[in-house]
């Protein structure tokens, strides 16, 4: 018997080509671009990676967390410790910091996984607060006042900007590619099954606990990476800012606007967020107010986010993860 | 009381789920104190029909007339206040309410009548035992009893029952169907959706068979034959 399963669409093939073109284009940017573009790209990479991880956790893993800033902040502080205190190369430190954060996520998951639904959301937030308050009581990393990361002061501006930029770009590509491949694999199936019905998933042979742990740790790794990367660019770190709940708030904003539970979502969302920030950020209070109104409006009018809406109208899927059985009738 | 008085009719009732049409012009009538059975294959539209009667699925106003009034598309709450109650498919109890509170919820429309907690407990003694238990912790059959009881508490003139016997032990099915005469004795009319055709024939006076959203057979329950029914089921 010949079983045919369709896993790509014409749009997705086109998107793949476009993505390759974009990668080449983006990778050469330091050769011809402005340094402000690099900086913006790095900053929004951090937002994007963070949002992507939140989407993985909430949109695919069904774990709506309001506490991912815990790992963002830890990533930043790990960078501080590695680069400033231990004296490692700051760029190498970014990677090690992310791995360390993933390690921390393992015991943290033990507490977080005791909770479900709304309890999980608030519980993770409190965990993030515990990290914030703990770090704020450690004078070696600046306590509640925070401190400056000085490891980059000796490095030349061009070198620092380019390396940071390429790192950010590599992280973004790895993030999109990794999540996409993961969701297409059979683990992706398990993840979706868990999101739909945890009890049934367990009884169909899926090791729900382990699967959630993997997702949680991967998301923590990504958030830690985003955090470390962010503070390489923004050399001042303090507990309130590093562990601020607005990191997660922005991630939610980005994901919801773009469309949750789809890879296109955070991409679209991050682009919109970037545009809004670029053109309206100087309006202060009104800009913030507008963001709030926009989040409300999109939620009410486009339940599935903007991409979900486009998809509903056109059937377009750039990152297909489903398996379509070809049935001859 | 005039036995032939029609308490409920539908005229060319159509119903949709979004763009998909589920009912294609149903003509139906129910008399006072009558028991009518609705049978039909899965997906034939039986549940949809009951939902359209009770306002859970929208219908044109004139398509449904209850006690002479056009009630198609009215709010379910208004319909139940006028005296038509539904025992929904799949029980659908309020999980965080106790058994007794579930029953009391049925009394929300505030219609006077013979059905009270005492009378229900007399009919289903298990429920009295479990009246303080959360309804979520009941077995399937016990839940079905609560669901029926809840509908009865509104003292309806027409009671619609969707798949009453689904998942019930024979002993309970017997109990429930044995209780039907007591229920209709007060002049209540019944519409029963039933999968077990012979049971449906036994307890009802007339029956309708639906097929793909249309009435494919209508007649006196005792008079219709097996052949007619299987033809009506599958449209052979």
């Amino acid at each position: 018997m010949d079983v045919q399963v369709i896993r790509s669409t014409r749009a997705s093939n086109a998107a793949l080509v476009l993505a390759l073109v974009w990668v080449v284009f983006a990778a050469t940017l330091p050769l011809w671009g402005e340094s402000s573009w690099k900086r913006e790209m790095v900053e929004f990479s951090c937002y994007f990676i963070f949002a992507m991880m939140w989407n993985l956790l909430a949109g695919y893993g069904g774990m709506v967390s309001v506490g991912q800033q815990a790992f963002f902040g830890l990533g930043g502080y790990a960078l501080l410790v590695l680069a400033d205190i231990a004296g490692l190369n700051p760029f190498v430190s970014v990677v090690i910091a992310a791995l360390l954060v993933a390690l921390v996520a393992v015991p943290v998951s033990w507490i977080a996984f005791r909770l479900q639904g709304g309890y999980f959301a608030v519980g993770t937030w409190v965990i993030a607060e515990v990290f914030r308050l703990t770090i704020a009581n450690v004078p070696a990393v600046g306590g509640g006042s925070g401190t400056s990361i000085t490891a980059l002061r000796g490095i030349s501006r061009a070198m620092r900007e380019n390396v940071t930029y390429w790192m950010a770009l590599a992280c973004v590509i790895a993030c999109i590619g990794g999540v996409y491949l993961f969701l297409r694999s059979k683990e992706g199936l398990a993840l979706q099954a868990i999101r739909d019905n945890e009890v049934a998933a367990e009884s169909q042979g899926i090791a729900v606990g382990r699967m959630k742990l993997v997702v949680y740790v991967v998301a923590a790794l990504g958030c830690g990476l985003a955090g470390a990367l962010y503070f390489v660019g923004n050399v001042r770190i303090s507990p309130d800012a590093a562990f601020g709940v607005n990191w997660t708030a922005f991630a939610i904003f980005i994901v919801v606007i773009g469309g949750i539970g789809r890879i296109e979502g955070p991409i679209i969302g991050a682009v919109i967020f970037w545009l809004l920030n670029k053109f309206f950020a100087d309006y202060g209070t009104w800009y913030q107010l507008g963001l709030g109104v926009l989040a409300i409006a999109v939620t009410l009018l486009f339940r599935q986010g903007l991409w979900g809406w486009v998809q509903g109208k056109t059937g377009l899927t750039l990152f297909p993860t489903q398996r379509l059985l070809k049935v001859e009738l | 009381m005039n036995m032939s008085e029609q308490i409920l009719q539908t005229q060319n009732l159509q119903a949709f789920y979004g763009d998909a049409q589920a009912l294609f012009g149903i003509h139906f009538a129910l008399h006072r104190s009558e028991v009518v059975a609705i049978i039909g294959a899965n997906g034939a539209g039986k549940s949809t029909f009951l939902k359209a009667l009770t306002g859970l699925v929208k219908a044109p106003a004139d398509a449904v007339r209850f006690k002479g009034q056009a009630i198609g598309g009215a709010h379910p709450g208004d319909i139940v206040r006028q005296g038509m109650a539904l025992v929904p498919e799949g029980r659908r109890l309020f999980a965080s309410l106790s058994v007794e509170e579930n029953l009391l919820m049925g009394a929300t429309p505030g219609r006077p009548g013979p059905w009270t907690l005492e009378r229900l407990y007399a009919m289903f003694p298990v429920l009295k035992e479990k009246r303080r238990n959360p309804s979520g912790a009941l077995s399937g059959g016990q839940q079905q009893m609560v669901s029926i009881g809840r509908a009865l508490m509104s003292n309806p003139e027409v009671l619609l029952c969707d798949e009453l016997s689904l998942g019930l032990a024979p002993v309970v099915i017997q109990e429930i169907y044995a209780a039907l005469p007591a229920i209709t004795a007060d002049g209540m009319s019944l519409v029963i959706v039933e999968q077990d055709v012979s049971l449906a024939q036994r307890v009802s006076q007339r029956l309708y068979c639906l097929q793909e959203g249309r009435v494919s057979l209508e007649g006196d329950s005792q008079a219709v034959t097996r052949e007619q029914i299987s033809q009506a089921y599958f449209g052979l």
Partner: protein
Amino acid sequence: MFETLIQGLLLGGLYALFALGLSIMFGVMRLTNIAQGDFIVLAAFVAVALAAQLGSGIGLTLLLLLPAGFLIGHQLQTHLLNRTMGKDPLPSLVVTFGLSIVIQNALQEVFSADPRSLDSGGLNTASFALGDMSIGVLPLLIFAAAVACTVGLQWLFARTALGRSFRAVSDDPEIAELMGLKSWRVYAMATGIAFALIALAGWFQVLRTTVAPTDGPMLLLFAFEAVIIGGMGSFWGTFIGAMVLGLTQQIGFTIDPGWGLWLGHMVFLAVLVVRPQGLFPKTRG
């Protein structure tokens, strides 16, 4: 030690008052109101504006504030939040989060960033002696109000038809409609009550301290913790949760002020690890 205990309970009373509105909305609608704190702050500003405009005393201000709170909650639910209801908790999370940002910035635009307070005519510093301890009248009033509200809500939910309908609609809105309820009205009623409590909390907050437009979020987390320690949807649970939180924080402050909040959070997490469903899950009749 005794003093720490008393002060801890009084602090718990404050948290309970912050938390009860949240508990209602959690319980009836599975709605996580991220803007809870901001609405408390909004109520506080409205109280200040009312007092300034009408020159009314604090009592009259409250009298106006409570129905206004109810009305705002009712309308908010009817026109906005009802459209976010459903199995998925995310839409309401995002909408209330959006509201939180809108309120903060709108308040700042209208009232500027300055902190405000309501002149309580000495109530905020009044006290009476208990042994060699002196206890504030206002904290005691807050505590009493929290107890009264808890008793009232518990009675309302567990013993009245309205309470039953709250729970029924929260379980299965479609079937509740079959029983003759209009679920959006029930929701609006619940949110109205929650917002009357928010108004009360805002009024007390602006009497006991100053309030600035961006204070909202800090009020939220403790309210959350109280609700969850207690177990969502149970009012005595929320009250006890608030007490646990107030007490641990107070004990923490007494031991070392740097670790007081930390200890509160740790106890919260510990409770959840031991009893993930909270201490008193779910109201039952």
